[in-house]
Protein backbone atom coordinates (compact mmCIF):
# COMPACT_ATOMS: atom_id res chain seq x y z
CA UNK A 1 0.00 0.00 0.00
CA UNK A 2 1.46 3.36 -0.90
CA UNK A 3 0.75 6.86 0.30
CA UNK A 4 -0.22 8.19 -3.14
CA UNK A 5 -2.96 5.61 -3.39
CA UNK A 6 -4.42 6.65 -0.04
CA UNK A 7 -4.18 10.35 -0.95
CA UNK A 8 -6.02 9.63 -4.19
CA UNK A 9 -8.72 7.83 -2.23
CA UNK A 10 -8.98 10.77 0.18
CA UNK A 11 -9.41 13.26 -2.66
CA UNK A 12 -12.07 11.10 -4.33
CA UNK A 13 -13.79 10.73 -0.98
CA UNK A 14 -13.76 14.47 -0.43
CA UNK A 15 -15.39 15.09 -3.82
CA UNK A 16 -17.99 12.40 -3.24
CA UNK A 17 -18.65 13.74 0.25
CA UNK A 18 -19.13 17.30 -1.01
CA UNK A 19 -21.64 16.12 -3.61
CA UNK A 20 -23.48 14.19 -0.89
CA UNK A 21 -23.37 17.32 1.23
CA UNK A 22 -24.99 19.50 -1.44
CA UNK A 23 -27.91 17.10 -1.78
CA UNK A 24 -28.23 16.34 1.94
CA UNK A 25 -28.11 20.01 2.97
CA UNK A 26 -30.97 20.85 0.63
CA UNK A 27 -32.96 17.92 1.98
CA UNK A 28 -32.21 19.01 5.53
CA UNK A 29 -33.10 22.64 4.84
CA UNK A 30 -36.47 21.69 3.32
CA UNK A 31 -37.19 19.34 6.22
CA UNK A 32 -36.17 21.96 8.78
CA UNK A 33 -38.32 24.73 7.35
CA UNK A 34 -41.34 22.85 5.95
CA UNK A 35 -41.29 19.65 8.04
CA UNK A 36 -41.56 17.80 4.73
CA UNK A 37 -39.32 14.91 3.70
CA UNK A 38 -38.76 15.48 0.01
CA UNK A 39 -38.55 12.02 -1.54
CA UNK A 40 -38.23 13.60 -4.98
CA UNK A 41 -35.01 15.37 -4.00
CA UNK A 42 -32.75 12.79 -5.66
CA UNK A 43 -34.63 13.14 -8.94
CA UNK A 44 -33.84 16.84 -9.13
CA UNK A 45 -30.21 15.95 -8.74
CA UNK A 46 -30.59 13.35 -11.52
CA UNK A 47 -32.42 15.81 -13.79
CA UNK A 48 -29.73 18.42 -13.22
CA UNK A 49 -27.00 15.93 -14.13
CA UNK A 50 -28.93 14.80 -17.23
CA UNK A 51 -29.56 18.43 -18.11
CA UNK A 52 -25.86 19.12 -17.85
CA UNK A 53 -25.16 16.21 -20.20
CA UNK A 54 -27.65 17.35 -22.83
CA UNK A 55 -26.58 20.99 -22.67
CA UNK A 56 -22.93 20.14 -23.25
CA UNK A 57 -23.47 17.25 -25.69
CA UNK A 58 -26.33 18.63 -27.76
CA UNK A 59 -26.65 22.37 -27.23
CA UNK A 60 -23.02 23.40 -27.39
CA UNK A 61 -22.78 24.74 -23.85
CA UNK A 62 -19.39 24.94 -22.16
CA UNK A 63 -18.74 23.83 -18.59
CA UNK A 64 -19.63 27.10 -16.88
CA UNK A 65 -22.61 27.82 -19.09
CA UNK A 66 -24.06 24.41 -18.29
CA UNK A 67 -23.43 24.78 -14.54
CA UNK A 68 -25.06 28.20 -14.37
CA UNK A 69 -28.02 27.24 -16.56
CA UNK A 70 -28.73 24.01 -14.67
CA UNK A 71 -28.51 25.74 -11.30
CA UNK A 72 -30.77 28.60 -12.36
CA UNK A 73 -33.36 26.21 -13.79
CA UNK A 74 -33.22 24.12 -10.59
CA UNK A 75 -33.97 27.17 -8.44
CA UNK A 76 -36.97 27.94 -10.67
CA UNK A 77 -38.12 24.30 -10.45
CA UNK A 78 -37.97 24.66 -6.66
CA UNK A 79 -40.26 27.71 -6.77
CA UNK A 80 -42.72 25.87 -9.02
CA UNK A 81 -42.58 22.72 -6.87
CA UNK A 82 -43.50 24.76 -3.82
CA UNK A 83 -46.24 26.79 -5.47
CA UNK A 84 -47.86 23.86 -7.28
CA UNK A 85 -47.48 20.94 -4.88
CA UNK A 86 -46.17 21.80 -1.43
CA UNK A 87 -47.90 25.10 -0.65
CA UNK A 88 -51.13 23.55 0.52
CA UNK A 89 -49.48 21.05 2.84
CA UNK A 90 -49.61 21.96 6.52
CA UNK A 91 -47.47 20.60 9.34
CA UNK A 92 -50.09 17.93 10.03
CA UNK A 93 -50.02 16.53 6.49
CA UNK A 94 -46.87 14.49 6.99
CA UNK A 95 -48.23 11.31 5.36
CA UNK A 96 -49.62 13.26 2.44
CA UNK A 97 -46.28 14.95 1.91
CA UNK A 98 -44.54 11.57 1.74
CA UNK A 99 -47.02 10.17 -0.80
CA UNK A 100 -46.89 13.35 -2.83
CA UNK A 101 -43.11 13.61 -3.09
CA UNK A 102 -42.65 9.85 -3.48
CA UNK A 103 -45.18 9.88 -6.32
CA UNK A 104 -43.42 12.79 -7.94
CA UNK A 105 -40.17 10.91 -7.65
CA UNK A 106 -41.69 7.89 -9.47
CA UNK A 107 -43.06 10.07 -12.24
CA UNK A 108 -39.77 11.90 -12.78
CA UNK A 109 -37.62 8.79 -12.57
CA UNK A 110 -39.74 6.67 -14.88
CA UNK A 111 -40.36 9.58 -17.21
CA UNK A 112 -36.60 10.00 -17.51
CA UNK A 113 -36.17 6.25 -18.13
CA UNK A 114 -38.82 6.36 -20.82
CA UNK A 115 -37.26 9.32 -22.58
CA UNK A 116 -33.60 8.53 -22.23
CA UNK A 117 -33.32 4.78 -21.32
CA UNK A 118 -31.05 3.55 -18.55
CA UNK A 119 -27.86 3.85 -20.60
CA UNK A 120 -25.14 5.68 -18.67
CA UNK A 121 -23.78 8.73 -20.46
CA UNK A 122 -20.49 10.53 -20.08
CA UNK A 123 -20.51 14.31 -20.12
CA UNK A 124 -17.66 15.85 -22.05
CA UNK A 125 -16.65 19.46 -21.57
CA UNK A 126 -13.67 21.57 -22.53
CA UNK A 127 -12.03 20.55 -19.22
CA UNK A 128 -12.52 16.78 -19.53
CA UNK A 129 -8.94 15.95 -20.48
CA UNK A 130 -7.21 18.51 -18.31
CA UNK A 131 -5.74 17.69 -14.96
CA UNK A 132 -4.10 19.44 -12.05
CA UNK A 133 -1.06 18.19 -10.18
CA UNK A 134 -1.32 18.64 -6.44
CA UNK A 135 1.93 17.41 -4.90
CA UNK A 136 1.97 13.64 -5.28
CA UNK A 137 -1.63 13.44 -6.56
CA UNK A 138 -2.79 14.11 -10.06
CA UNK A 139 -6.44 15.11 -10.24
CA UNK A 140 -8.69 15.71 -13.23
CA UNK A 141 -9.67 19.38 -13.39
CA UNK A 142 -13.42 18.59 -13.35
CA UNK A 143 -12.97 16.97 -9.93
CA UNK A 144 -11.23 20.03 -8.55
CA UNK A 145 -13.97 22.21 -10.03
CA UNK A 146 -16.60 20.05 -8.28
CA UNK A 147 -14.85 20.84 -5.00
CA UNK A 148 -14.77 24.55 -5.87
CA UNK A 149 -18.49 24.60 -6.77
CA UNK A 150 -19.41 22.83 -3.56
CA UNK A 151 -17.35 25.17 -1.41
CA UNK A 152 -18.83 28.24 -3.14
CA UNK A 153 -22.32 26.85 -2.47
CA UNK A 154 -21.58 26.18 1.21
CA UNK A 155 -20.17 29.63 1.79
CA UNK A 156 -23.10 31.28 0.00
CA UNK A 157 -25.62 29.25 1.96
CA UNK A 158 -23.88 30.08 5.23
CA UNK A 159 -23.84 33.79 4.40
CA UNK A 160 -27.53 33.76 3.44
CA UNK A 161 -28.61 31.87 6.55
CA UNK A 162 -26.56 33.92 8.99
CA UNK A 163 -26.26 37.38 7.50
CA UNK A 164 -29.48 38.14 5.65
CA UNK A 165 -32.86 38.85 7.12
CA UNK A 166 -34.67 36.25 5.08
CA UNK A 167 -31.98 33.67 5.90
CA UNK A 168 -32.37 34.32 9.60
CA UNK A 169 -36.12 34.04 9.12
CA UNK A 170 -35.54 30.59 7.54
CA UNK A 171 -33.54 29.47 10.57
CA UNK A 172 -36.23 30.99 12.75
CA UNK A 173 -39.06 29.02 11.13
CA UNK A 174 -36.97 25.84 11.46
CA UNK A 175 -36.34 26.52 15.15
CA UNK A 176 -39.81 27.56 16.24
CA UNK A 177 -42.78 27.98 13.91
CA UNK A 178 -44.99 29.60 16.55
CA UNK A 179 -42.32 32.17 17.32
CA UNK A 180 -41.99 32.91 13.61
CA UNK A 181 -45.71 33.59 13.39
CA UNK A 182 -45.47 35.71 16.54
CA UNK A 183 -42.93 38.12 15.02
CA UNK A 184 -44.75 38.28 11.68
CA UNK A 185 -42.61 36.03 9.47
CA UNK A 186 -44.75 34.77 6.60
CA UNK A 187 -44.05 31.02 6.58
CA UNK A 188 -44.97 30.77 2.89
CA UNK A 189 -42.37 33.25 1.71
CA UNK A 190 -39.70 31.49 3.77
CA UNK A 191 -40.83 28.00 2.72
CA UNK A 192 -40.84 28.91 -0.95
CA UNK A 193 -37.30 30.19 -0.68
CA UNK A 194 -36.15 27.13 1.27
CA UNK A 195 -37.47 24.79 -1.43
CA UNK A 196 -35.90 26.91 -4.18
CA UNK A 197 -32.54 26.93 -2.40
CA UNK A 198 -32.79 23.22 -1.57
CA UNK A 199 -33.57 22.16 -5.14
CA UNK A 200 -30.97 24.65 -6.37
CA UNK A 201 -28.34 22.91 -4.25
CA UNK A 202 -29.18 19.54 -5.77
CA UNK A 203 -28.94 21.26 -9.15
CA UNK A 204 -25.39 22.38 -8.36
CA UNK A 205 -24.64 18.83 -7.18
CA UNK A 206 -25.90 17.30 -10.42
CA UNK A 207 -24.02 19.81 -12.55
CA UNK A 208 -20.79 19.36 -10.60
CA UNK A 209 -21.04 15.58 -10.73
CA UNK A 210 -22.05 15.08 -14.37
CA UNK A 211 -18.57 15.71 -15.86
CA UNK A 212 -16.98 13.44 -13.19
CA UNK A 213 -19.12 10.29 -13.26
CA UNK A 214 -21.55 8.85 -15.80
CA UNK A 215 -25.16 9.99 -15.57
CA UNK A 216 -28.34 7.93 -15.95
CA UNK A 217 -32.03 8.18 -14.89
CA UNK A 218 -31.66 5.87 -11.88
CA UNK A 219 -28.78 7.75 -10.27
CA UNK A 220 -31.03 9.92 -8.08
CA UNK A 221 -33.05 7.31 -6.27
CA UNK A 222 -30.19 5.34 -4.74
CA UNK A 223 -28.43 8.57 -3.91
CA UNK A 224 -31.48 9.85 -2.05
CA UNK A 225 -31.46 7.07 0.52
CA UNK A 226 -27.83 7.71 1.22
CA UNK A 227 -28.69 11.38 1.66
CA UNK A 228 -31.40 10.39 4.17
CA UNK A 229 -28.84 8.40 6.13
CA UNK A 230 -26.56 11.46 6.12
CA UNK A 231 -29.35 13.78 7.28
CA UNK A 232 -30.19 11.42 10.14
CA UNK A 233 -26.53 11.00 11.10
CA UNK A 234 -26.08 14.78 11.12
CA UNK A 235 -29.32 15.44 13.03
CA UNK A 236 -32.68 16.03 11.33
CA UNK A 237 -32.95 19.57 10.03
CA UNK A 238 -29.38 20.43 11.06
CA UNK A 239 -27.82 21.74 7.83
CA UNK A 240 -24.26 22.07 9.10
CA UNK A 241 -24.48 18.62 10.71
CA UNK A 242 -25.59 17.14 7.38
CA UNK A 243 -22.61 18.74 5.60
CA UNK A 244 -20.09 17.36 8.09
CA UNK A 245 -21.67 13.88 8.07
CA UNK A 246 -21.70 13.91 4.26
CA UNK A 247 -18.03 14.73 3.85
CA UNK A 248 -17.07 12.20 6.52
CA UNK A 249 -19.13 9.51 4.83
CA UNK A 250 -17.69 10.30 1.39
CA UNK A 251 -14.15 9.94 2.69
CA UNK A 252 -14.95 6.74 4.62
CA UNK A 253 -16.63 5.23 1.57
CA UNK A 254 -13.75 6.11 -0.66
CA UNK A 255 -11.20 4.62 1.74
CA UNK A 256 -13.35 1.50 2.14
CA UNK A 257 -13.64 1.13 -1.63
CA UNK A 258 -9.85 0.89 -1.81
CA UNK A 259 -9.82 -2.19 0.39
CA UNK A 260 -13.27 -3.82 0.40
CA UNK A 261 -15.93 -4.83 -2.09
CA UNK A 262 -18.52 -2.40 -3.45
CA UNK A 263 -21.30 -4.06 -1.42
CA UNK A 264 -19.56 -3.12 1.82
CA UNK A 265 -19.10 0.43 0.62
CA UNK A 266 -22.76 0.97 -0.22
CA UNK A 267 -23.88 -0.48 3.09
CA UNK A 268 -21.57 1.74 5.11
CA UNK A 269 -23.92 4.74 5.28
CA UNK A 270 -26.74 2.66 6.67
CA UNK A 271 -24.60 0.77 9.17
CA UNK A 272 -23.33 4.14 10.43
CA UNK A 273 -26.86 5.50 10.55
CA UNK A 274 -28.04 2.59 12.69
CA UNK A 275 -25.05 2.95 15.01
CA UNK A 276 -25.64 6.67 15.40
CA UNK A 277 -29.35 6.15 16.08
CA UNK A 278 -28.50 3.62 18.78
CA UNK A 279 -25.98 5.86 20.49
CA UNK A 280 -27.33 9.35 19.78
CA UNK A 281 -30.99 9.19 18.68
CA UNK A 282 -31.03 12.89 17.69
CA UNK A 283 -28.00 12.53 15.42
CA UNK A 284 -24.39 13.43 16.01
CA UNK A 285 -25.04 17.16 16.11
CA UNK A 286 -28.58 17.37 17.48
CA UNK A 287 -31.88 18.14 15.79
CA UNK A 288 -33.18 21.06 13.73
CA UNK A 289 -32.29 23.80 16.15
CA UNK A 290 -28.94 24.76 14.68
CA UNK A 291 -29.79 25.28 11.03
Amino acid at each position, binding site marked *: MNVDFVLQLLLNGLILGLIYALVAMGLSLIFGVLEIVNFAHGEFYMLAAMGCYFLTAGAGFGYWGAVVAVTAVSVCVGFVLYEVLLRRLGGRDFERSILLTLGLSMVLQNGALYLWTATPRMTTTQYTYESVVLGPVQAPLVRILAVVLAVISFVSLYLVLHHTRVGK*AMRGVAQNR*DAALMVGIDPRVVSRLAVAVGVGLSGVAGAALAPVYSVHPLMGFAFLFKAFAIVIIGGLGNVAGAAIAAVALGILESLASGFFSLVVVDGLAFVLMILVLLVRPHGLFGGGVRV
Partner: protein
Amino acid sequence: MAMAEPPILELKRLSAGYLDEPIVRAIDLTVPRRTITTLIGPNGAGKSTLMRAIYGLIRRFDGAIVFDGEDISDAKPIERLRRGIGFVPQGRCNFPGMSVRENLELGGYTLSRGEARAAIERVLALFPVLRQRFDVLAGNLSGGEQQILEMAMVMEAAPKLLLLDEPSLGLSPINQEQVFETIRTIRDGGVTVMVVEQNAYGALAISDTAVVLELGAKRLEGPARSIATDPRVRATYLGGSTEDVAEPGA
Protein backbone atom coordinates in the same frame (compact mmCIF):
# COMPACT_ATOMS: atom_id res chain seq x y z
CA MET B 1 -65.86 65.67 29.06
CA ALA B 2 -63.91 65.38 25.80
CA MET B 3 -65.04 62.87 23.22
CA ALA B 4 -63.81 59.50 24.44
CA GLU B 5 -61.41 57.42 22.34
CA PRO B 6 -62.96 54.20 21.08
CA PRO B 7 -62.05 51.16 23.18
CA ILE B 8 -58.95 49.37 21.92
CA LEU B 9 -60.83 46.12 21.39
CA GLU B 10 -64.46 45.16 21.03
CA LEU B 11 -65.71 41.63 20.55
CA LYS B 12 -69.27 41.47 19.25
CA ARG B 13 -70.93 38.11 19.78
CA LEU B 14 -67.71 36.42 18.67
CA SER B 15 -67.80 32.66 18.09
CA ALA B 16 -64.61 30.86 17.10
CA GLY B 17 -63.07 27.39 17.16
CA TYR B 18 -60.95 24.89 15.33
CA LEU B 19 -62.85 22.44 13.12
CA ASP B 20 -66.59 22.25 12.72
CA GLU B 21 -67.75 23.64 16.00
CA PRO B 22 -67.05 26.89 17.82
CA ILE B 23 -65.30 26.54 21.17
CA VAL B 24 -65.98 30.06 22.39
CA ARG B 25 -69.52 31.25 21.78
CA ALA B 26 -71.13 34.65 21.47
CA ILE B 27 -68.50 36.52 23.45
CA ASP B 28 -69.23 40.22 23.99
CA LEU B 29 -66.31 42.11 25.45
CA THR B 30 -65.07 45.68 25.52
CA VAL B 31 -61.47 46.32 26.52
CA PRO B 32 -60.59 49.92 27.46
CA ARG B 33 -57.19 51.35 26.56
CA ARG B 34 -54.15 51.13 28.83
CA THR B 35 -55.61 48.45 31.08
CA ILE B 36 -54.69 44.90 32.02
CA THR B 37 -57.46 42.35 31.57
CA THR B 38 -57.11 38.82 32.93
CA LEU B 39 -59.06 35.91 31.51
CA ILE B 40 -59.70 33.25 34.11
CA GLY B 41 -61.63 30.02 34.08
CA PRO B 42 -61.14 26.28 34.37
CA ASN B 43 -59.18 24.20 31.88
CA GLY B 44 -61.01 23.96 28.58
CA ALA B 45 -63.03 27.12 29.19
CA GLY B 46 -61.72 28.59 25.94
CA LYS B 47 -59.30 31.19 27.29
CA SER B 48 -56.45 30.38 24.88
CA THR B 49 -58.95 29.87 22.08
CA LEU B 50 -60.29 33.37 22.59
CA MET B 51 -56.73 34.79 22.47
CA ARG B 52 -55.97 32.91 19.27
CA ALA B 53 -59.24 34.12 17.76
CA ILE B 54 -58.33 37.75 18.53
CA TYR B 55 -54.97 37.25 16.76
CA GLY B 56 -56.71 35.51 13.85
CA LEU B 57 -55.08 32.10 14.18
CA ILE B 58 -58.30 30.11 14.23
CA ARG B 59 -61.59 30.00 12.43
CA ARG B 60 -64.19 32.64 13.22
CA PHE B 61 -67.73 31.30 12.93
CA ASP B 62 -69.74 34.36 13.77
CA GLY B 63 -69.58 37.80 15.30
CA ALA B 64 -67.03 40.56 14.82
CA ILE B 65 -63.71 41.80 16.14
CA VAL B 66 -63.28 45.57 16.17
CA PHE B 67 -59.76 46.78 16.92
CA ASP B 68 -58.95 50.45 17.41
CA GLY B 69 -62.25 51.41 15.80
CA GLU B 70 -61.85 49.20 12.72
CA ASP B 71 -63.36 45.85 11.89
CA ILE B 72 -60.54 43.31 11.57
CA SER B 73 -62.70 40.17 11.59
CA ASP B 74 -61.22 38.87 8.33
CA ALA B 75 -57.62 40.09 8.64
CA LYS B 76 -54.76 37.57 8.66
CA PRO B 77 -52.50 37.38 11.75
CA ILE B 78 -49.64 39.27 10.06
CA GLU B 79 -52.07 42.02 9.09
CA ARG B 80 -53.30 42.20 12.70
CA LEU B 81 -49.69 42.41 13.89
CA ARG B 82 -49.09 45.34 11.52
CA ARG B 83 -52.23 47.05 12.81
CA GLY B 84 -51.05 46.75 16.40
CA ILE B 85 -52.01 43.42 17.99
CA GLY B 86 -49.11 41.45 19.47
CA PHE B 87 -49.55 37.85 20.58
CA VAL B 88 -47.17 35.80 22.71
CA PRO B 89 -48.42 32.20 22.57
CA GLN B 90 -48.25 29.68 25.37
CA GLY B 91 -45.01 27.78 25.89
CA ARG B 92 -41.51 28.74 24.84
CA CYS B 93 -41.81 30.96 21.83
CA ASN B 94 -38.36 32.19 20.85
CA PHE B 95 -35.56 30.96 18.57
CA PRO B 96 -33.51 28.84 21.00
CA GLY B 97 -30.48 28.36 18.73
CA MET B 98 -30.03 32.10 18.17
CA SER B 99 -28.59 34.75 20.44
CA VAL B 100 -30.77 37.33 22.17
CA ARG B 101 -29.45 39.79 19.57
CA GLU B 102 -30.65 37.66 16.65
CA ASN B 103 -33.98 36.98 18.35
CA LEU B 104 -34.53 40.70 18.72
CA GLU B 105 -33.49 41.25 15.09
CA LEU B 106 -36.22 38.83 14.03
CA GLY B 107 -38.60 40.55 16.44
CA GLY B 108 -38.30 43.57 14.15
CA TYR B 109 -39.00 41.48 11.03
CA THR B 110 -42.03 43.53 9.97
CA LEU B 111 -40.13 46.83 10.40
CA SER B 112 -37.62 48.53 8.14
CA ARG B 113 -33.95 48.10 9.07
CA GLY B 114 -33.71 51.52 10.68
CA GLU B 115 -36.97 51.10 12.56
CA ALA B 116 -35.86 47.68 13.78
CA ARG B 117 -32.61 49.10 15.17
CA ALA B 118 -34.52 51.82 17.03
CA ALA B 119 -37.05 49.27 18.26
CA ILE B 120 -34.31 47.04 19.68
CA GLU B 121 -32.86 50.00 21.58
CA ARG B 122 -36.33 50.84 22.87
CA VAL B 123 -37.07 47.35 24.21
CA LEU B 124 -33.57 47.04 25.69
CA ALA B 125 -34.24 50.23 27.64
CA LEU B 126 -37.55 48.75 28.76
CA PHE B 127 -36.09 45.32 29.64
CA PRO B 128 -32.49 45.98 30.77
CA VAL B 129 -31.99 42.32 31.75
CA LEU B 130 -31.79 41.47 28.04
CA ARG B 131 -28.88 43.85 27.48
CA GLN B 132 -26.77 41.90 29.95
CA ARG B 133 -27.59 38.67 28.11
CA PHE B 134 -27.31 40.10 24.58
CA ASP B 135 -24.97 37.49 23.10
CA VAL B 136 -26.31 34.47 25.00
CA LEU B 137 -28.33 31.86 23.08
CA ALA B 138 -32.02 32.27 23.90
CA GLY B 139 -32.21 28.57 24.77
CA ASN B 140 -29.67 29.14 27.55
CA LEU B 141 -31.64 31.91 29.29
CA SER B 142 -33.69 31.23 32.42
CA GLY B 143 -37.41 30.65 31.90
CA GLY B 144 -38.24 34.13 33.15
CA GLU B 145 -35.67 35.75 30.88
CA GLN B 146 -37.02 33.79 27.91
CA GLN B 147 -40.55 35.00 28.65
CA ILE B 148 -39.29 38.58 28.89
CA LEU B 149 -37.38 38.12 25.62
CA GLU B 150 -40.57 36.93 23.93
CA MET B 151 -42.53 39.92 25.19
CA ALA B 152 -39.70 42.19 24.04
CA MET B 153 -39.72 40.63 20.55
CA VAL B 154 -43.43 41.35 20.18
CA MET B 155 -43.11 44.82 21.73
CA GLU B 156 -40.70 45.82 18.97
CA ALA B 157 -43.63 46.12 16.58
CA ALA B 158 -45.07 48.66 19.08
CA PRO B 159 -48.41 46.91 19.53
CA LYS B 160 -51.32 48.80 21.06
CA LEU B 161 -52.74 45.54 22.38
CA LEU B 162 -50.56 42.75 23.76
CA LEU B 163 -52.05 39.26 24.18
CA LEU B 164 -50.15 37.01 26.60
CA ASP B 165 -51.07 33.34 26.89
CA GLU B 166 -49.85 31.87 30.19
CA PRO B 167 -46.74 34.04 30.53
CA SER B 168 -45.80 32.67 33.97
CA LEU B 169 -46.38 28.97 33.20
CA GLY B 170 -43.55 26.78 34.43
CA LEU B 171 -41.61 29.63 36.03
CA SER B 172 -40.23 29.78 39.56
CA PRO B 173 -42.06 32.14 41.94
CA ILE B 174 -39.27 34.73 41.63
CA ASN B 175 -39.39 34.57 37.84
CA GLN B 176 -43.20 34.81 37.93
CA GLU B 177 -42.88 37.97 40.00
CA GLN B 178 -40.41 39.34 37.43
CA VAL B 179 -42.83 38.61 34.58
CA PHE B 180 -45.80 40.23 36.35
CA GLU B 181 -43.67 43.27 37.10
CA THR B 182 -42.75 43.46 33.40
CA ILE B 183 -46.41 43.25 32.35
CA ARG B 184 -47.18 46.18 34.62
CA THR B 185 -44.29 48.14 33.08
CA ILE B 186 -45.70 47.46 29.61
CA ARG B 187 -49.15 48.69 30.64
CA ASP B 188 -47.66 51.81 32.24
CA GLY B 189 -46.02 52.49 28.86
CA GLY B 190 -49.50 52.88 27.35
CA VAL B 191 -50.11 49.39 26.00
CA THR B 192 -53.30 47.46 26.68
CA VAL B 193 -52.62 43.94 27.90
CA MET B 194 -54.84 40.86 27.88
CA VAL B 195 -53.49 37.91 29.78
CA VAL B 196 -54.49 34.29 30.36
CA GLU B 197 -52.92 32.99 33.56
CA GLN B 198 -52.85 29.77 35.53
CA ASN B 199 -51.53 31.85 38.43
CA ALA B 200 -54.85 33.68 38.71
CA TYR B 201 -54.02 35.41 41.99
CA GLY B 202 -50.76 36.77 40.61
CA ALA B 203 -52.47 38.01 37.47
CA LEU B 204 -55.48 39.48 39.27
CA ALA B 205 -53.12 41.39 41.55
CA ILE B 206 -51.80 43.42 38.59
CA SER B 207 -55.02 43.54 36.55
CA ASP B 208 -57.65 46.21 36.20
CA THR B 209 -60.38 43.97 34.85
CA ALA B 210 -61.10 40.26 35.07
CA VAL B 211 -63.26 38.15 32.79
CA VAL B 212 -64.41 34.71 33.85
CA LEU B 213 -64.97 32.20 31.06
CA GLU B 214 -66.75 28.89 31.48
CA LEU B 215 -67.54 26.33 28.78
CA GLY B 216 -66.70 28.82 26.06
CA ALA B 217 -69.03 31.56 27.32
CA LYS B 218 -68.47 34.67 29.36
CA ARG B 219 -69.72 34.07 32.87
CA LEU B 220 -68.61 37.14 34.82
CA GLU B 221 -66.81 40.40 34.21
CA GLY B 222 -65.73 43.07 36.63
CA PRO B 223 -62.91 44.92 38.35
CA ALA B 224 -60.08 42.49 39.08
CA ARG B 225 -60.21 43.21 42.78
CA SER B 226 -63.87 42.38 43.22
CA ILE B 227 -63.58 39.25 41.05
CA ALA B 228 -60.63 38.13 43.17
CA THR B 229 -62.67 38.44 46.34
CA ASP B 230 -65.98 37.23 44.88
CA PRO B 231 -66.88 34.16 46.94
CA ARG B 232 -68.43 32.32 43.97
CA VAL B 233 -65.33 32.81 41.85
CA ARG B 234 -63.03 31.88 44.70
CA ALA B 235 -64.90 28.70 45.42
CA THR B 236 -65.07 27.64 41.80
CA TYR B 237 -61.88 28.79 40.11
CA LEU B 238 -59.33 30.17 42.46
CA GLY B 239 -59.31 27.75 45.35
CA GLY B 240 -57.46 29.54 48.11
CA SER B 241 -57.99 32.29 50.59
CA THR B 242 -58.43 35.98 49.94
CA GLU B 243 -55.37 36.64 52.07
CA ASP B 244 -53.28 35.60 49.06
CA VAL B 245 -54.54 38.54 47.03
CA ALA B 246 -52.04 41.35 46.87
CA GLU B 247 -53.08 44.97 46.52
CA PRO B 248 -53.89 45.59 42.85
CA GLY B 249 -52.30 48.53 41.14
CA ALA B 250 -49.55 49.46 43.62
